[in-house]
């Protein structure tokens, strides 16, 4: 098993009413596997994570990542909407 930290920003944090969780996954799990687990946490989670959506941006250890990215123990995965700074 591996343990990772999952964080949410901006509208995602508000929609899920959650800024951070710890999640355990099988070895060699991908971010796609993580999304599937998150989708099972409730209706709001389902809506956000059920399918790969271009409006869901992902970072792993503060680098932009894809659903195919392989996870390692201790990783920090962040989910956020497209950026709107400047």
């Amino acid at each position: 098993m591996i343990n990772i930290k999952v964080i949410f920003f901006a509208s995602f944090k508000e929609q899920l009413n959650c800024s951070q969780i710890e999640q355990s996954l099988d070895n060699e799990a991908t971010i796609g596997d993580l999304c599937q687990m998150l989708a099972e946490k409730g209706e709001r989670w389902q809506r956000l994570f059920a399918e790969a959506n271009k409006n869901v941006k992902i970072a792993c250890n503060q680098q932009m990542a894809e659903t195919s990215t392989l996870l390692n123990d201790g990783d920090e995965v962040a989910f956020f909407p497209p950026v709107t700074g400047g």
Partner: protein
Amino acid sequence: MKSFRKKIVISKEPLDLTRFNLQIQSSQGENGASVIFTGCVRASKQDDGLIGMTLEHYPNMTESLLDEILLQAEKRWQLSRVLVAHRVGYLTRGEPIVFVGTCARHRKEAFESAEFIMDYLKNKATFWKKEHFIEDGNTKELWVESKQSDLETLKRWQ
């Protein structure tokens, strides 16, 4: 004044534009050209009931993304000084959100690099805006949605 070649500032306090302007323009004489861009919360949006804005970011990731954007700019243009500052937290109408200042030998480099940095900042840097409105005496909050037109600005640099 402390000299620097490259600086990134993310601030919870109001941006001190006078100080930033001076930091960019003080090196203009030796380099020939400088360009300054500032973006503010639109005061004209008062008509829509806008009272302010909250800027959220992803600490550390934002700084490294901005650093990467400046590295890319330095590969394209010879910049003697560059300063990027971005506000986070709650801002009222008219307050500055972002400052970009570039110094180079010629105006073309200074103009283009400032525009490049802004285009990439808007599309890549992990900031999110939430607008606060008053409507019929009630407050309302709306996350700003990203614009396709912003994404298209990157095409000219590819």
